Protein backbone atom coordinates (compact mmCIF):
# COMPACT_ATOMS: atom_id res chain seq x y z
CA UNK A 1 0.00 0.00 0.00
CA UNK A 2 2.42 2.60 -1.22
CA UNK A 3 -0.23 5.31 -1.55
CA UNK A 4 -1.66 5.29 1.97
CA UNK A 5 0.93 7.53 3.71
CA UNK A 6 0.79 10.09 0.92
CA UNK A 7 -3.00 10.02 1.04
CA UNK A 8 -2.98 10.56 4.81
CA UNK A 9 -0.55 13.48 4.44
CA UNK A 10 -2.70 15.08 1.73
CA UNK A 11 -5.89 14.61 3.80
CA UNK A 12 -4.33 16.15 6.92
CA UNK A 13 -3.02 19.07 4.89
CA UNK A 14 -6.42 19.78 3.37
CA UNK A 15 -8.28 19.44 6.66
CA UNK A 16 -5.85 21.79 8.42
CA UNK A 17 -6.02 24.29 5.58
CA UNK A 18 -9.82 24.23 5.70
CA UNK A 19 -9.65 24.85 9.45
CA UNK A 20 -7.35 27.84 9.04
CA UNK A 21 -9.43 29.38 6.29
CA UNK A 22 -12.79 29.08 8.05
CA UNK A 23 -11.52 29.88 11.55
CA UNK A 24 -13.31 32.36 13.83
CA UNK A 25 -10.67 32.29 16.56
CA UNK A 26 -6.94 32.92 16.28
CA UNK A 27 -5.97 30.17 18.73
CA UNK A 28 -8.05 27.69 16.71
CA UNK A 29 -6.22 28.80 13.55
CA UNK A 30 -2.85 28.21 15.20
CA UNK A 31 -3.88 24.69 16.22
CA UNK A 32 -4.99 24.00 12.63
CA UNK A 33 -1.56 25.16 11.50
CA UNK A 34 0.02 22.51 13.69
CA UNK A 35 -2.24 19.92 12.00
CA UNK A 36 -0.87 21.08 8.62
CA UNK A 37 2.67 20.73 10.00
CA UNK A 38 1.96 17.16 11.11
CA UNK A 39 1.02 16.31 7.52
CA UNK A 40 4.52 17.35 6.45
CA UNK A 41 6.01 15.06 9.12
CA UNK A 42 4.10 12.09 7.70
CA UNK A 43 5.26 12.98 4.20
CA UNK A 44 8.91 13.13 5.34
CA UNK A 45 8.73 9.81 7.16
CA UNK A 46 7.02 8.02 4.29
CA UNK A 47 9.73 9.23 1.91
CA UNK A 48 12.46 7.64 4.03
CA UNK A 49 10.73 4.38 4.91
CA UNK A 50 12.01 1.05 3.54
CA UNK A 51 9.69 -1.93 3.72
CA UNK A 52 11.43 -4.60 5.81
CA UNK A 53 14.32 -2.36 6.84
CA UNK A 54 15.72 -2.43 10.36
CA UNK A 55 16.49 0.46 12.69
CA UNK A 56 19.48 2.47 11.40
CA UNK A 57 21.88 1.57 14.23
CA UNK A 58 24.75 -0.62 13.02
CA UNK A 59 26.31 -1.75 16.31
CA UNK A 60 25.10 -5.33 16.20
CA UNK A 61 23.97 -5.61 12.58
CA UNK A 62 26.46 -6.01 9.70
CA UNK A 63 27.06 -2.84 7.74
CA UNK A 64 25.11 -2.92 4.52
CA UNK A 65 21.77 -4.34 5.67
CA UNK A 66 18.72 -2.44 4.51
CA UNK A 67 17.80 0.17 7.09
CA UNK A 68 15.23 2.91 7.34
CA UNK A 69 16.65 6.28 6.38
CA UNK A 70 17.76 8.07 9.58
CA UNK A 71 18.09 11.50 8.00
CA UNK A 72 14.37 12.03 7.48
CA UNK A 73 13.48 10.84 10.98
CA UNK A 74 16.04 13.24 12.46
CA UNK A 75 14.60 15.99 10.26
CA UNK A 76 11.09 15.20 11.49
CA UNK A 77 12.10 15.33 15.17
CA UNK A 78 13.85 18.64 14.58
CA UNK A 79 10.78 19.89 12.75
CA UNK A 80 8.51 19.00 15.68
CA UNK A 81 10.60 21.05 18.09
CA UNK A 82 10.89 24.02 15.74
CA UNK A 83 7.14 23.83 15.06
CA UNK A 84 6.48 24.14 18.77
CA UNK A 85 8.50 27.36 19.00
CA UNK A 86 6.84 28.76 15.87
CA UNK A 87 3.44 28.06 17.46
CA UNK A 88 4.65 29.94 20.54
CA UNK A 89 5.60 32.91 18.34
CA UNK A 90 2.18 32.89 16.69
CA UNK A 91 0.45 32.71 20.06
CA UNK A 92 2.44 35.74 21.21
CA UNK A 93 1.19 37.52 18.08
CA UNK A 94 -2.36 36.47 19.01
CA UNK A 95 -1.87 37.95 22.50
CA UNK A 96 -0.81 41.25 20.95
CA UNK A 97 -3.70 41.15 18.48
CA UNK A 98 -6.11 40.64 21.36
CA UNK A 99 -4.62 43.64 23.13
CA UNK A 100 -5.10 45.83 20.05
CA UNK A 101 -8.59 44.77 19.02
CA UNK A 102 -10.13 43.35 22.17
CA UNK A 103 -11.20 40.21 20.28
CA UNK A 104 -9.63 37.06 18.86
CA UNK A 105 -12.06 36.83 15.94
CA UNK A 106 -10.22 37.53 12.68
CA UNK A 107 -13.49 38.50 10.97
CA UNK A 108 -13.94 41.41 13.36
CA UNK A 109 -10.52 42.99 12.90
CA UNK A 110 -11.25 46.44 11.57
CA UNK A 111 -8.80 49.28 10.97
CA UNK A 112 -6.63 50.14 14.00
CA UNK A 113 -8.63 51.84 16.69
CA UNK A 114 -5.85 53.82 18.34
Amino acid at each position, binding site marked *: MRLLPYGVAAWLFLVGLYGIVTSRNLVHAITCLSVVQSSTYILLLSVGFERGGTAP*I*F*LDVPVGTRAVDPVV*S*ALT*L*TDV*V*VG*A*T*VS*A*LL*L*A*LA*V*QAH*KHHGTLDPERFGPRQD
Partner: protein
Amino acid sequence: MFAAVVGVAILLRAQRDETEQPPDEDAADRHAPATSNAVRVLGLVLLGPVVLFGIYVIAHGHLSPGGGFQGGVVLATGALLVYLSGEYVTLRRVRPEVLIDLAESAGAAGYVAIGFLGVAAGATFLANVLPLGQPGALISSGMIPLINLAVGLEVAGGFVLLLSEFLEQTLVVRRPGEVT
Protein backbone atom coordinates in the same frame (compact mmCIF):
# COMPACT_ATOMS: atom_id res chain seq x y z
CA MET B 1 14.16 28.46 16.05
CA PHE B 2 16.40 31.10 17.57
CA ALA B 3 14.50 33.70 15.51
CA ALA B 4 11.14 32.46 16.80
CA VAL B 5 12.26 32.64 20.44
CA VAL B 6 13.69 36.15 19.96
CA GLY B 7 10.43 37.16 18.28
CA VAL B 8 8.40 36.00 21.28
CA ALA B 9 10.68 37.85 23.67
CA ILE B 10 10.26 41.05 21.64
CA LEU B 11 6.50 40.72 21.23
CA LEU B 12 5.74 40.02 24.87
CA ARG B 13 7.88 42.72 26.45
CA ALA B 14 5.94 45.12 28.69
CA GLN B 15 4.34 47.83 26.61
CA ARG B 16 4.60 51.51 27.45
CA ASP B 17 1.39 51.70 29.46
CA GLU B 18 1.74 48.40 31.28
CA THR B 19 3.51 47.89 34.58
CA GLU B 20 5.03 44.82 36.15
CA GLN B 21 3.25 43.81 39.32
CA PRO B 22 4.82 40.91 41.22
CA PRO B 23 2.19 38.27 42.01
CA ASP B 24 2.83 38.15 45.77
CA GLU B 25 1.56 41.71 46.24
CA ASP B 26 -2.10 40.90 45.64
CA ALA B 27 -2.22 37.47 47.22
CA ALA B 28 -5.40 38.39 49.08
CA ASP B 29 -7.67 38.28 46.03
CA ARG B 30 -5.93 35.53 44.11
CA HIS B 31 -8.56 33.10 42.98
CA ALA B 32 -6.20 30.35 41.87
CA PRO B 33 -6.17 27.43 44.34
CA ALA B 34 -2.90 26.44 45.98
CA THR B 35 -1.15 23.50 44.38
CA SER B 36 -1.99 20.22 46.07
CA ASN B 37 0.67 18.37 48.01
CA ALA B 38 0.60 15.41 45.63
CA VAL B 39 1.52 17.59 42.65
CA ARG B 40 4.22 19.31 44.65
CA VAL B 41 5.86 16.09 45.81
CA LEU B 42 5.63 14.48 42.38
CA GLY B 43 7.16 17.52 40.73
CA LEU B 44 10.09 17.62 43.11
CA VAL B 45 10.66 13.86 42.93
CA LEU B 46 10.63 13.85 39.13
CA LEU B 47 12.89 16.90 38.74
CA GLY B 48 16.19 15.10 39.29
CA PRO B 49 15.48 12.13 36.97
CA VAL B 50 14.13 14.44 34.26
CA VAL B 51 17.25 16.63 34.26
CA LEU B 52 19.49 13.56 34.28
CA PHE B 53 17.51 11.98 31.45
CA GLY B 54 17.79 15.17 29.42
CA ILE B 55 21.56 15.26 29.81
CA TYR B 56 21.72 11.55 28.91
CA VAL B 57 19.70 12.06 25.72
CA ILE B 58 21.88 15.00 24.68
CA ALA B 59 25.15 13.17 25.39
CA HIS B 60 24.20 9.95 23.59
CA GLY B 61 22.87 11.64 20.47
CA HIS B 62 25.37 9.95 18.20
CA LEU B 63 24.74 6.45 19.58
CA SER B 64 20.96 6.17 19.99
CA PRO B 65 17.92 8.21 18.92
CA GLY B 66 18.01 11.61 20.52
CA GLY B 67 20.51 14.39 20.34
CA GLY B 68 20.38 18.09 20.88
CA PHE B 69 16.78 18.94 20.02
CA GLN B 70 15.09 16.14 21.88
CA GLY B 71 17.32 16.37 24.96
CA GLY B 72 16.92 20.13 25.12
CA VAL B 73 13.14 19.80 25.26
CA VAL B 74 13.45 17.23 28.08
CA LEU B 75 15.67 19.65 30.02
CA ALA B 76 13.14 22.45 29.56
CA THR B 77 10.46 20.14 30.98
CA GLY B 78 12.42 20.23 34.23
CA ALA B 79 11.85 23.96 34.49
CA LEU B 80 8.18 23.41 33.76
CA LEU B 81 8.06 20.91 36.65
CA VAL B 82 9.45 23.59 38.98
CA TYR B 83 6.62 25.93 37.98
CA LEU B 84 3.96 23.23 38.30
CA SER B 85 5.07 22.13 41.75
CA GLY B 86 5.32 25.59 43.24
CA GLU B 87 4.33 29.16 42.77
CA TYR B 88 5.64 31.36 39.97
CA VAL B 89 7.98 33.19 42.34
CA THR B 90 9.88 29.95 42.93
CA LEU B 91 10.46 29.64 39.20
CA ARG B 92 11.73 33.20 39.04
CA ARG B 93 14.25 32.50 41.77
CA VAL B 94 15.40 29.26 40.16
CA ARG B 95 15.78 30.53 36.60
CA PRO B 96 17.96 33.63 36.74
CA GLU B 97 17.35 35.50 33.53
CA VAL B 98 20.99 36.13 32.81
CA LEU B 99 21.74 32.42 32.90
CA ILE B 100 18.93 31.56 30.48
CA ASP B 101 19.94 34.24 27.99
CA LEU B 102 23.56 33.16 28.31
CA ALA B 103 22.69 29.49 27.74
CA GLU B 104 20.61 30.18 24.67
CA SER B 105 23.10 32.56 23.07
CA ALA B 106 26.04 30.29 23.91
CA GLY B 107 24.24 27.42 22.24
CA ALA B 108 23.53 29.32 19.04
CA ALA B 109 27.00 30.87 18.92
CA GLY B 110 28.62 27.51 19.73
CA TYR B 111 26.92 25.90 16.74
CA VAL B 112 28.35 28.53 14.38
CA ALA B 113 31.75 28.38 16.07
CA ILE B 114 31.95 24.59 15.64
CA GLY B 115 31.00 25.03 12.01
CA PHE B 116 33.84 27.47 11.49
CA LEU B 117 36.19 25.00 13.19
CA GLY B 118 35.79 22.95 10.05
CA VAL B 119 36.65 25.95 7.87
CA ALA B 120 39.72 26.76 9.98
CA ALA B 121 41.03 23.20 9.49
CA GLY B 122 40.86 23.57 5.72
CA ALA B 123 37.62 21.70 4.99
CA THR B 124 34.08 22.95 4.33
CA PHE B 125 31.76 24.60 6.87
CA LEU B 126 30.49 22.07 9.46
CA ALA B 127 32.86 19.36 8.23
CA ASN B 128 33.85 16.70 10.76
CA VAL B 129 37.52 17.38 11.55
CA LEU B 130 38.00 15.79 14.98
CA PRO B 131 39.14 12.13 15.28
CA LEU B 132 36.32 9.66 14.70
CA GLY B 133 37.12 7.01 17.32
CA GLN B 134 35.46 3.61 17.82
CA PRO B 135 31.81 3.09 16.82
CA GLY B 136 29.72 2.74 19.95
CA ALA B 137 32.04 4.62 22.31
CA LEU B 138 30.78 7.75 24.04
CA ILE B 139 33.70 9.93 22.98
CA SER B 140 33.61 9.24 19.26
CA SER B 141 32.32 10.48 15.90
CA GLY B 142 34.24 13.73 15.92
CA MET B 143 32.30 16.94 16.32
CA ILE B 144 28.82 15.45 16.61
CA PRO B 145 28.74 15.34 20.46
CA LEU B 146 29.92 18.96 20.59
CA ILE B 147 27.20 20.08 18.20
CA ASN B 148 24.66 18.09 20.21
CA LEU B 149 25.76 19.91 23.34
CA ALA B 150 25.46 23.33 21.69
CA VAL B 151 22.03 22.54 20.22
CA GLY B 152 20.81 21.08 23.53
CA LEU B 153 21.85 24.23 25.39
CA GLU B 154 20.14 26.41 22.83
CA VAL B 155 16.87 24.45 22.78
CA ALA B 156 16.64 24.20 26.57
CA GLY B 157 17.39 27.90 27.04
CA GLY B 158 14.93 28.85 24.31
CA PHE B 159 12.06 26.80 25.72
CA VAL B 160 12.58 28.05 29.29
CA LEU B 161 12.64 31.60 27.90
CA LEU B 162 9.36 30.95 26.05
CA LEU B 163 7.80 29.52 29.21
CA SER B 164 8.86 32.45 31.37
CA GLU B 165 7.73 35.03 28.78
CA PHE B 166 4.23 33.59 28.59
CA LEU B 167 3.96 33.17 32.36
CA GLU B 168 5.08 36.75 32.94
CA GLN B 169 2.55 37.95 30.43
CA THR B 170 -0.27 36.18 32.25
CA LEU B 171 0.73 36.64 35.86
CA VAL B 172 2.86 39.74 36.14
CA VAL B 173 2.26 42.32 33.44
CA ARG B 174 -0.83 44.43 34.12
CA ARG B 175 -2.44 47.35 32.35
CA PRO B 176 -3.52 50.33 34.51
CA GLY B 177 -6.99 49.70 35.84
CA GLU B 178 -7.03 46.00 35.00
CA VAL B 179 -8.16 43.60 37.75
CA THR B 180 -6.13 40.46 38.41
